[in-house]
């Protein structure tokens, strides 16, 4: 399934310039997804520092988890809690269409670990693992 920017606005609390996903081009609820961010300006390049490439993947992971029946957006918040074995392999250029691929590898309680990869065409920009904690927003 696909998720457009309006729906992403309903799922994530992030807004410009801290929202790093233009749309989701493919999603299996709670399991895997590919998000897209078009790099159109110098500002985009500056924003897409390595740590924010990871943040972009975390946002894609959060969107995926929000499609779990038990984790509807609004009732739950997702937090990036762990970053593991990340490598940054290539530079990002203006005109790149950055694809963020994430896939669930392990779940335990309210913790979800994903593999993540950022790519632009055939270039692998970054790869590693990240974990998200899902916490009730109502306490």
């Amino acid at each position: 399934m696909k998720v457009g920017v309006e729906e992403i606005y309903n799922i994530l609390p992030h807004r410009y310039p801290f929202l790093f996903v233009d749309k989701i081009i493919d999603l299996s609820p709670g399991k895997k997804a590919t998000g897209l961010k078009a790099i159109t300006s110098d500002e985009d390049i500056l924003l897409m520092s390595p740590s924010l490439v990871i943040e972009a993947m975390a946002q894609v992971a959060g969107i995926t988890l929000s499609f779990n029946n038990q984790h509807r957006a609004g009732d739950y918040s997702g937090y990036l809690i762990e970053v593991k074995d990340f490598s940054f392999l290539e530079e990002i250029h203006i005109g790149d269409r950055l694809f963020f691929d994430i896939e669930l590898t392990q779940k335990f309680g309210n913790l979800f670990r994903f593999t993540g990869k950022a790519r632009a065409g055939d270039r692998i920009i970054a790869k590693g693992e990240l974990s998200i904690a899902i916490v009730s927003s109502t306490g």
Partner: protein
Amino acid sequence: MEGVAQGLNDKVKDLIIRRLKLTIDPKTIKDDAPLFGEGLGLDSIDALELVVGLEQEFGISIPDEDVGREAFASVNALVAYINKTKGQA
């Protein structure tokens, strides 16, 4: 049999130290001490890493937190859980 059992305890301690990048001597981990909170002082992210490690290295899964609470009570409890799960396989 005692030697086999102790061997598994040592393997579990080795897994804990290696996967969690702890800088302690395995001998300082008591077989019956709690792994989380007091005792070894592990946290929930450590639990996730142990779940991954147990699946990859021992081929056993910890399906939910309730099972985890029981299995991660101590090294002895984890060894008992591994033996029970392997016995059912």
